């Protein structure tokens, strides 16, 4: 019925990722101290501005899973005692670090330099601390924990932000003492400014998805995630989102969608099924289903960046990020998405090994479907372990969702 029509420009994000990891390997060979970051993506500007190369472990795991390079690291992790219920990002990342030299030589992306220091947060998931502790114990390296208050009450936002700012100042001292490099405030401000420009482009592009048909799907945004994960604050990140925005504007003018024959508009909750990324995007498109919005793509990554106050920008983003918000806020936010983007139905990705980011979904589906009278389903899969993916189950759930949408349309007509 439908056909996938992905953005050409989103592939620039993928290319940026390849360059990032190559630059990382070269920097490590030169002897630069390497920082591993678990969870605290938004702190990368502070590390970059000190010319310290870094690995964002979550993104590495997602990258390997999307490129189908996760199996051997998973096997090694299994042998080392990481049970299959363990967060897949952890299993893939730790499995990668525990690979033998012989294994590493086989795949370039497995050649990740060991850490000299580690930054972690407990912001959206307590397990980052335990993962970080595992890294600390195995590599015997200094570690810094950023403790981010969970926003049980929205009114605590400012206090929480100030608290995180105070820790970022401590983190700065930690970075300088550990790497023997100095923070460059001008460079940090410039990175934040670039981040702001990229985000403005990104936001504008995301708004264009309100059009019918939508010129992009969340899979386009996911393909371009390298721009956030690895190129944040660099001119190329601005370039990627600018290219996407321009391509999307042209599509809107031509009324060309990212799904030719868009018949259903869906909202996706949860992260991406990285190992099934391509097949799933094609499957949805073949059904005429365009996933036009997602809390993950819209709400997990940096938004407000103010180069006049870099630390506050970073802290604000850590506190305000979607998974750090209370359930009422999340429900209202997703319901608003569904209205703004004219969504017909909600799909929740129940990722088996990431309990942090899907724990709210049962309540979310119940609340949003009651509020907006739209159907919601969940598909059980995983962010990194393809063995938890059952195509038959996904097909059945999708079929049910689309049938419910059709039935409601008939009733409304």
């Amino acid at each position, binding site marked *: 019925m439908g056909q996938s029509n992905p953005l050409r420009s989103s592939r620039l994000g993928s290319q940026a990722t390849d360059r990032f990891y190559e630059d990382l390997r070269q920097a490590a060979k030169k002897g630069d101290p390497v920082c591993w970051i678990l969870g605290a993506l938004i702190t990368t500007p502070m590390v970059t501005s000190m010319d310290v190369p870094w690995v964002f472990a979550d993104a590495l795991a997602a990258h390997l899973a999307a490129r189908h390079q996760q199996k051997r690291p998973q096997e090694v992790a299994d042998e*080392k005692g990481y049970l299959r*219920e363990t967060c897949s990002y952890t299993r893939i990342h730790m499995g990668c670090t525990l690979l033998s030299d012989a294994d590493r030589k086989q795949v370039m992306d497995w050649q990740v330099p060991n850490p000299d220091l580690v930054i972690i947060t407990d912001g959206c998931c307590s397990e980052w601390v335990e993962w970080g502790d*595992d890294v600390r114990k195995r590599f015997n390296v200094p570690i810094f924990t950023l403790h981010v208050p969970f926003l049980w009450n929205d009114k605590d936002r400012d206090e929480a932000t100030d608290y995180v700012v105070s820790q970022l100042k401590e983190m700065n001292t930690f970075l300088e003492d550990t790497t023997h490099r100095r923070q460059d405030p001008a460079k940090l401000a410039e990175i934040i400014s670039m981040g702001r420009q990229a985000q403005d482009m990104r936001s504008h592009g995301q708004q264009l998805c309100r059009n019918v048909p939508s010129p992009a799907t969340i899979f386009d945004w996911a393909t371009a995630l390298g721009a956030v994960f690895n190129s944040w604050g660099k001119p190329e990140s601005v370039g990627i989102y600018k290219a996407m925005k321009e391509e999307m504007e042209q599509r809107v003018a031509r009324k060309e969608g990212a799904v030719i024959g868009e018949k259903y508009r869906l909202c996706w909750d949860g992260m991406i099924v990285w190992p099934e990324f391509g097949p799933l995007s094609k499957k949805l498109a073949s059904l005429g289903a365009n996933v036009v919005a997602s809390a993950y793509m819209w709400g997990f990554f940096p938004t407000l960046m103010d180069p006049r106050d870099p630390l506050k920008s970073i802290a604000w983003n850590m506190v305000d990020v979607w998974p750090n918000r209370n359930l009422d806020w999340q429900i209202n936010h997703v319901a608003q998405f569904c209205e703004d983007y004219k969504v017909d139905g909600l799909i929740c990705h*129940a990722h088996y090994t990431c309990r942090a980011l899907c724990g*709210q979904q*049962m309540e979310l589906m119940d609340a949003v479907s009651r509020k907006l009278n739209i159907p919601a389903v969940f598909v059980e899969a995983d962010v990194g372990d393809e063995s938890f993916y059952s195509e038959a189950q996904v097909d059945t759930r999708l079929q049910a969702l689309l049938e419910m949408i059709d039935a409601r349309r008939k009733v409304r007509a």
Partner: protein
Amino acid sequence: MTSTKIRLDINLEDPYRRARELKKEGKKVFGVSPMHFPEELIHAGGGLPVVLQESTEPVTYGLAHLYPFFCGFTRSVVDMGVRNKLDVFDTIVLGDLCIQLRHMVKTLKRQMPATSFVYTQWPLEISERFHSTVRGRLQRCKKDIEQLLGREITDDNLAQSIRLYNQNRRLMRQVIDLARAKPGVLRARDLVGLVESGMVMPKEEHNRMLEGLIPQLKRKRASSKQGAKVYLAGHLCMAVKVEILDLIEELGGQVVWDDLYTGSRYVASDASETLPPMEALTQRYFNLGIPCPSRMEPKYGWSDYILDRVKQAGAQGVMVFMVKQCGPMLLYYPYLKDVFERESIPYTVIVTEHEVVSFEQVKTRIQAFLEMIQRGA
């Protein structure tokens, strides 16, 4: 001295029975999330703190609220909540240390609109950096509890509660020490039952129970039968099923040490009785007695503790109990495994589930492990 084993037959099928009785008498009952929340704070205000317990009932309605791949504790408590079986609680308190507990309480908050909720969050790195954070959080929590109880929690009242809870912990540790020193006088299931009963009844009553029991234990003679000496490790947030504990003993195991939550961990350390009470509770968070895999403790971690206690107690092997889907255990276990192998300590892992289809698999595993360590393999 008599040699008959003391059988306590503690019935915990309905753990909140006593709380319901006291609620009828006008007591405000607070359901407290497990692991590290200082119950003294609630007690000092005149409330009854009760640690939330895993139910023995299968999860039914709860399946519509929390996915089946969440840990059994959170699913069970959510199930109880949506089936109106937690109505005994005027307030539920979360000391947030685990993302699954957080989702459990987020769900309960939506599903139990008549219940109040108090939230506080623990920094998970044990470091002096976070001393003022913990102190501030406890202060804020105290205010929230005062508001709900309608009265001030004075320093004097708090100091008194700390003394009471310390007394309870000391008495319980005495029972544990006696049980270890005199194998066979108390079943493992009864030891765990005693700890669990202390979590769900007023500490005043529990102290009286323990004070009555200790002389009996002192009079008993240890069994002459020596079993394979095992250390029971892990199992956070909830009790190991008593059937498994029975199996260990029936198959020839002798528990010489444990750090189970519903075991030694719950009573491992006291709050200072000389410091100002809020400072005492703050410091206790940083000195819980047994390092916890849910936290990063760089100076002396859980694996260090286990190694020291294995030597001290003469344990021949370690049985690691892991609640299925427990994040802290999943992430700590691989390192612990490496440590055991490096130190040549026999170990086994028992993954427990809320829904138990059959104990046969567990029995086989325990039997094989005990035979192995008895042979000195």
